[in-house]
């Protein structure tokens, strides 16, 4: 999966328009990155990538790139 495809999935989870996110986007600047979105992210990681994402790990995510790196 390309980075563009991963970003598109992330935009879908966050209910953002396509092209909103860049790898360097600071997550703290995204209003939609709230507790429900984080829960949705946990579900997506498990269902789509087979990866367990913990609350502690989410707390460490600062940019979109951090999430992309976790996706692998």
């Amino acid at each position: 999966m390309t980075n563009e495809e991963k970003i598109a999935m992330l935009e879908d989870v966050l209910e953002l328009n396509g092209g909103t996110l860049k790898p360097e986007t600071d997550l703290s600047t995204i209003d939609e990155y709230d507790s429900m979105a984080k829960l949705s992210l946990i579900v997506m990681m498990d269902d789509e990538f087979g990866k367990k994402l913990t609350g502690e790990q989410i707390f460490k995510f600062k940019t979109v790139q951090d999430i992309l790196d976790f996706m692998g």
Partner: protein
Amino acid sequence: MLVVKSAVGQVMDSVVYALSDGISHDYYLVDIGDFDAARSLLPEDANVRGVFITHGHHDHIFGINSLKKAYPECVVYASEECTRMLASAKLNLSMYLEMPMEYAGEVTILHDGDVVPLFEGINLTAIATPGHNPSCLCFEVENYLFTGDSYIPGVKVVTNLPGGNKKQAQESLEKILRIAEGRKLCPGHNAC
């Protein structure tokens, strides 16, 4: 006359509502995210006759096993989709939060328009409001409308969890707003 009390629970600040007629010891609950929150609303001699589940997300059902242990005769009312979520830690999302819970006991299934008598002259009507989740129901009782997460005033309806559907959520929202006119709204978060 219907008396409604509410308490905010520890599980994602979801709200538990307790309904009574102010005369008998009979009570009904709307959602049971946190049994301790529910218990704070009930007198010691309360007879909890039923709990109405607005939808199957963990924060609205987490206390159900404690409730059934304390009040075995309590009837669980929910949508058909919700019964599947109650019985699956994956579907109700509790698994993802490392607090897995499941309930596989009896459920009385409610469909859109079903009416349940609560107290003398006081009925509850179920209203299907899919969108936030397919399991979503709202409940109309006298001039109260319990909306779960299908409508939280001032908050955009969340549709990015599994089963969420933005188009259905919008249609349900329009339906809720029509019914809500002149009624007191009691959402699943931010109590009325």
